[in-house]
């Protein structure tokens, strides 16, 4: 008997998603970003199967962050109160491919700002940069349901990625995202079964599966990254196996999660090396780990970590069909 061919091949693929609408498509973005399209596991198969390059979405907060460590404040110290300038800096100086506006300031515990504030921030950032936007609520359902539909409306037609919707709170944002022609982030708490269910629920409301990006929740290095890794990997394998309810590109939140780790920010730790390096390294390591599991969009914060990750992506994906 001849030796059989054992190269792994798959029947399914990750959906391709193009974020942002330029003038021709009814928006005001100067560029679009396409992610997804992988037809194999990361680094598996031929370069043509690796799909689009993963991209970095840099975080811009709607309100001045109160709990950021000095190392993270430093690069943004002049723009922390000016989301538009902040976004511009991320794009022009640090090469952000997407801007993720994170509306922490609307949370009742961290400012309780209203919809008018959120709309103003959205418009400021839209005017300041030409890259596509990610618009991300505060995670407090009641407040998100009040504010995020207004944010969605302020960016109508821009093909933003907006979220998040969960198994318990999906109806209002799903409906408005559909009406305003945005892409939707479905969120699950590191639980693949719930992840699939949220996608089904959004799909049941008529939201096209091809316009969904999944957020499985993220754990940073040392804080549950193995759970995030295995879920991302399982999602990719399900997509490759033809599971249409799991074939979406994935976004992860490495910036916030990495900078929560004490190893990233504790200044008074002589045995751990200089704090100025530790945080960016922690963030970059977490991001690179998750890249290997198959995430498509990485939310990040520190410019040095972003530079490291973009450098790696540009080297590893240089032969892809992106």
């Amino acid at each position, binding site marked *: 008997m001849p030796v*059989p061919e054992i190269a792994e091949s798959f029947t399914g693929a990750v959906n391709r998603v193009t974020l942002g609408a330029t003038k021709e498509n009814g928006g005001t973005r100067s560029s679009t970003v396409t992610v997804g399209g992988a037809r194999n596991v990361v680094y598996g198969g031929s370069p043509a199967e690796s799909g689009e390059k993963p991209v970095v979405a840099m975080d811009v907060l709607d309100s001045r962050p109160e709990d950021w460590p000095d190392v993270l404040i430093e690069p943004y110290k002049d723009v922390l109160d000016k989301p538009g300038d902040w976004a511009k800096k991320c794009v022009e100086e640090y090469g952000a491919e997407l801007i993720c506006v994170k509306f922490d300031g609307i949370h009742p515990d961290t400012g309780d700002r209203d919809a008018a504030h959120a709309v103003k921030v959205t418009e400021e950032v839209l005017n300041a940069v030409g890259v596509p936007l990610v618009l991300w609520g505060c995670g407090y359902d009641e407040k998100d349901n009040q504010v995020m539909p207004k944010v969605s409306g302020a960016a109508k037609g821009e093909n933003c990625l907006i979220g998040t919707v969960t198994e318990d709170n999906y109806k209002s944002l799903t409906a408005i995202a559909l009406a305003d022609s945005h892409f939707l982030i479905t969120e699950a708490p590191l639980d693949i*079964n719930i992840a699939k269910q949220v996608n089904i629920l959004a799909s049941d409301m008529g939201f096209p599966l091809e316009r969904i990006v999944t957020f499985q929740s993220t754990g940073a290095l040392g804080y549950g990254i193995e759970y995030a890794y295995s879920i991302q990997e399982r999602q990719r394998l*399900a997509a490759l196996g033809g599971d249409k*309810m799991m074939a979406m590109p994935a976004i992860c939140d490495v910036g916030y999660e990495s900078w929560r780790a004490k190893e990233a920010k504790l200044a008074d730790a002589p045995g751990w090396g200089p704090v100025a390096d530790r945080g960016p390294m922690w963030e970059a390591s977490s991001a690179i780990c998750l890249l290997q599991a198959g995430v498509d969009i990485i939310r990040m914060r520190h410019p040095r970590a972003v530079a490291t990750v973009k450098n790696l992506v540009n080297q590893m994906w240089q032969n892809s069909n992106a």
Partner: protein
Amino acid sequence: MIIIGERINGQFTNVKKAIAEKDKKVIQELARQQTEAGATYMDVNVGTAAADQAGAMQWLVETIQETCSTPLSLDSQKPDVIAAGLKVVNAENGAILNSTPLNRKSDEEIFDKYMDMANQAGPKVNIIALTMDKNGVPQDIDTRVAVAAEIVSKAMEKGFDTERLFIDPIILPVKVPNAQVQPGNILAAIDQIKYLSEPAPHMTIGLSNLSQGATERSLINRVFLAMAISHGLDSAIVDVLDEKLMNVLATAEMLMNKQIYSDSFLKIYASMNK
């Protein structure tokens, strides 16, 4: 699971009548219903009544393809009827040639002929090969596996990708005297056949044959289907319009970790096999 819908078969009275009267609507409606119910492929069998079987096969294929894009399984033991179907089938969409034994007394090369036809038709055309040879249908486990091994070996020699090969270990009616040992034999055969190559050939069965003439047909079919899936069956020719059976199929696949569980796993199953 690769689900082959069995309803477009001339042995059913309504299909037989539709073929005789060239009534497209009956056939197109069956195609629509089976597609909606989750058929990955649809079997097309002209039955025995039609005088011109090749012509009837072409009419069925063309009629279905007018309104439905679900790939077809051309079902005949006669190579010329299959060849007639292949002339009009949309092979780029995928198709199955159903089916051929390893060999026949009257035709030693029949399996080769099917492989040649499939290869000519294109890379998405698959074959169902029965664990049956010129000596007939084996009754025991070992002969089934031995015939399957010859089938796999022949396919590999010819460079026919084993992923395009479906092996059908032939399920016999349980009601036939002394046949009650057969379902167990089929499971044992599946256990072994799936290790014959890497990637393994697909395993399929004509499920409804199991309950021919018996009472509680649907129950018998779906219980055995769950048992066979647990042994690695990854395809079956079934009545996709039997909702209880399809629910068992979805549940068994989920329990075998072939589908990621979600609270809506039953509801979405039909759309997952496309």
